[in-house]
């Protein structure tokens, strides 16, 4: 496939002039034109290599001055590089200096013409699109007023509208996009996503890591003009963030790794910062590190002081896994200075109720110098806190609440709302009614149900690439496993819609589906005709990869051996509870199921209890990676999609995990052997993974 942007060996050199360099002709003449030569030069960018395919979005991360803007300019054809090549296939559009060509004395109409022609359209093309541009900007009644009467928001809207109506095939986006009101921002983002789905290659520069992680398919981290990391956004962003943290506290003395009561090691400059005149020796989350939302907790900080301190400040924050702080307080806020004497001590923060939404959090504790200028000691994302709540897990807050109704609300007229849709009695007439209300084309045509870490993400990517996506479903809908109470109607709106020939296909993927004990039944009862795709990989490798992902996301603190040893304990009673309580979400079942998720035979049997064998396509991920074309056309055949135009795909299989200790590996191979044998017998196909 033709790449949209190919950058090879790019280098840009800037000249550094002496500070005495004459800036006027007169001075230059007086100094005899001598000081005009640059004193030195430095590489603003060096050895930059990357490519972006159509439909792909690359995020460039880096601090101010790392060379991001220079790189974007070079790609946009502004300035010339000293080394390397840039190849662009397609028309370039920029969301850079929005409204740069606009003049306040001209009317909106006149500015649209100037702006759009500057951006690359001919006047006739602008005239043809003029109404669309104005309509998108929502400025119809102001378009003939001078631009000086416009608010900043209106100007931005018009500029953005002009920029997006130039049909770019390569789009360069600057972080300044994040100005304007929220509605406008989301409109921008939607438009950008639309471009991406239409096959536009996008390069976004930003120093906001979360933005890159959310939007991009690939990330590139620039530091002093060189690439530090280039690859999957999660990985690159993770590296970037950890560097940013440690560089803010570079005064921390190095010190041997210590262990904490939570079991995770303390590493200087990674999760511990400070000058260590006061040391935090332990932090306890009491009564328990797993609470229900609304429970009281107390946080106990044990510290030791090596020399007398006239005043110190203790601080506690509770943050999410992504670092977003949810609660922050310090002893200064109560208006007292705390002199510390030599020796050990203890301080406790009592929180009467913690109304956080469910999820994984961290308690961070620090002790600071009296002006907060620097930390004596600060422990970051070491002490986990898990909060359970009844409301949807995507919310941050879960305060005590209730709905109250006044007057005559005819609740009885809304049976779907009054009786929950997750009533799973097969014979429940109310249930059947909901499904029938859906129009025919709103049922999913197929689901990719798992298994997790077995290449389903790649399969998803290929399908998304092969099919013409007309609406990107929100990823990780997780309807049948975690959001079932939201109802089928909600679900049908989330599905990815794609076009093949004249047929619209609706589909989604969730790796947890295959393993969740209730999903097969739920799917059957909602959509008995849906096609199911299963991809299974070597359970030993799956467990190893699964473990590493949990570690990377901060959910797993134990080492691998301990983690698999404690799996039976962690999962004890969870399945029973899932089956007993309709809306029970089991964190342990989702995250700590390294081995039991690899017992495919039980899961497949569960699915075959509901669905005929022909309705399932069961693939081996090893075949998929070795023989992508063949397996992918098998998938297309299964889905009745014409396989005439299979494009070439790059394999994005990342296999960079370290080797599993051979002893454990052998144990696991033996462990899975009988299950694999049983699976092979069941499906009459070899699943022994030897």
């Amino acid at each position: 496939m033709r790449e949209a942007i190919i950058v090879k060996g790019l280098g840009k050199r800037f000249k550094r002039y002496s500070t005495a360099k004459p800036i006027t002709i007169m001075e230059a003449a007086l100094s005899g034109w001598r000081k005009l030569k640059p004193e030195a030069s430095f590489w603003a960018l060096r050895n930059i290599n990357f490519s972006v395919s159509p439909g792909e979005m690359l995020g460039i991360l880096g601090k101010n001055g790392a060379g991001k803007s220079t790189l974007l300019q070079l790609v946009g054809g502004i300035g010339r590089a000293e080394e390397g090549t840039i190849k662009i296939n397609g028309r370039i559009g920029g969301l850079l200096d929005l409204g740069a060509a606009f003049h306040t004395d001209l009317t909106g109409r006149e500015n649209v013409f100037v702006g759009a022609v500057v951006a690359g359209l001919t006047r006739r093309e602008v005239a043809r699109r003029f109404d669309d541009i104005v309509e998108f900007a929502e400025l119809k009644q102001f378009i003939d007023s001078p631009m000086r009467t416009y608010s900043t928001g209106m100007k931005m809207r018009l500029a953005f509208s002009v920029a997006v109506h130039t049909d770019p095939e390569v789009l360069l986006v600057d972080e300044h996009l994040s100005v304007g009101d929220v509605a406008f921002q989301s409109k921008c983002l939607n438009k950008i996503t639309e471009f991406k789905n239409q096959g536009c290659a996008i390069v976004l520069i930003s120093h906001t890591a979360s933005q890159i992680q959310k939007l991009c398919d690939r990330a590139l981290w620039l530091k002093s003009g060189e690439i530090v990391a280039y690859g999957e956004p999660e990985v690159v962003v993770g590296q970037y963030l950890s560097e940013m943290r440690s560089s803010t506290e570079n005064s921390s003395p190095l010190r041997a790794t210590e262990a904490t009561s939570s079991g995770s090691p303390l590493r200087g400059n990674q999760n511990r910062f400070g000058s260590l005149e006061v040391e935090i020796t332990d932090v306890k989350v009491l009564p328990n590190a797993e609470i229900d939302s609304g429970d009281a907790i107390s946080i106990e900080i044990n510290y030791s002081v090596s020399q007398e301190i006239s005043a110190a400040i203790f601080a506690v924050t509770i943050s999410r896994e992504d670092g977003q702080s949810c609660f922050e307080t310090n002893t200064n806020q109560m208006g007292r200075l705390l002199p510390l004497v030599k020796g050990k001590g203890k301080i406790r923060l009592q929180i009467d109720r913690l109304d956080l939404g469910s999820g994984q959090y961290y308690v961070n504790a620090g002790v600071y110098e009296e002006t907060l200028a620097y930390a004596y000691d600060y422990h970051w994302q070491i002490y986990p806190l898990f909060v359970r709540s009844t409301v949807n897990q995507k919310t941050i807050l879960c305060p005590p609440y209730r709905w109250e109704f006044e007057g005559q609300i005819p609740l009885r007229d809304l049976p779907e709302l009054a009786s929950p849709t997750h009533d799973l009695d097969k014979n429940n007439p109310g249930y059947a009614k909901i499904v029938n209300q859906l129009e025919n084309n709103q049922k999913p045509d197929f689901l990719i149900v798992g298994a997790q870490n077995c290449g389903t993400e790649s399969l998803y990517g290929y399908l998304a690439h092969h099919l013409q996506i007309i609406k990107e479903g929100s990823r990780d809908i997780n309807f049948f496993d975690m959001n079932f109470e939201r109802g089928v109607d909600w679900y049908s709106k989330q599905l990815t819609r794609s076009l093949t020939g004249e047929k619209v296909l609706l589909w989604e993927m969730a790796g947890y589906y295959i393993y969740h004990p209730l999903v097969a039944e739920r799917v059957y009862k909602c959509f008995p005709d849906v096609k199911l795709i299963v991809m299974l990989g070597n359970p030993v490798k799956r467990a190893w990869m699964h473990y590493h992902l949990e570690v990377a996301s901060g959910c797993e603190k134990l080492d691998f051996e301990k983690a698999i040893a404690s799996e039976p304990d962690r999962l004890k009673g969870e399945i029973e509870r899932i089956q007993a309580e309709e809306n029970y979400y089991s964190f342990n079942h989702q995250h700590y199921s390294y081995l039991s998720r690899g017992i495919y035979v039980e899961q497949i049997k569960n699915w075959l209890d509901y669905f005929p064998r022909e309705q399932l396509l069961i693939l081996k991920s090893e075949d998929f990676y070795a023989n992508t074309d063949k397996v992918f056309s098998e998938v297309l055949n299964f889905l009745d999609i014409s396989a005439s135009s299979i494009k070439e795909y790059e394999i994005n299989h990342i296999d960079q995990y370290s080797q599993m200790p051979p002893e454990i590996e052998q144990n696991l191979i033996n462990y899975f052997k009988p299950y694999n044998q049983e699976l092979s017998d069941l499906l009459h196909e070899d699943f022994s993974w030897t």
Partner: protein
Amino acid sequence: MRNAGTLVYRRKIAHWFDLLRVLVDRDMKLLYKRSTLGIAWTLISPLLQLAVFSFLFRSVVPLNIPKFSSFAFSGLLIWTWSQTALFKSTALITNNKALIRQPNFPPAILPVVMTMTGLIHFVLALPVLIIFLAIDGIHLNSVLLLLPLLMIIQFFLTVSFAYPLAALNVTFRDTQHTLAVVLQMLFYLTPIFYDISSVPEKFKIFYYLNPMVPLIEAYRAILLKGMQPDWQALLILSLAVVALLPIGVEIFRRQSDHFVEEL
């Protein structure tokens, strides 16, 4: 394949001219909107100068040039076009940073835009000149059809100098001030309000090094005398423009790679 190629090429040319038109249009509109007098302003300055010259060189120091109003006004209009275009060109790059930072924007179009705007003002002022000619009793004849040729030569001559000046101002921010002084000097050293025949023979050689001199002489031959211009001088001038233009463009092109970093 070749068809697609030519199509792309044609679209590029069409876009370049559209861009020129839109930018010139923008400059003209801005001039209109900023003052109620609008384009009249561009006439007022040479008219005032003409009034002063008429007073000085008819009453104070009589030069005895026949049809002095037409003579001086034609010189002023021609000079004003080139002078304004060059003066404004120096600040082009520094004043249009935002445009230059747009992907795909060709900075080389800016000096052309500026000279084109000057040309339009020149053309708009021509009717006033014709009124002066009529008052002075000059009958225009078919030689007037040669006027566009002179305007084309002057256009390219101005552009050839506008390019290096625009580039120079990026490195030396006082180019505009220096240029103002130089242009002021050249104004007096060009036969605008006096006749070249009154220049002593030993200095005349310096006058013919000034490219504006043959140009103004040619304009006046056509407008005032209804005669063919000095073709030999025009040919030399055209050849000089053909040589100067690529040099100017090349200087500009080399510098343009560094515009963004120097701004």
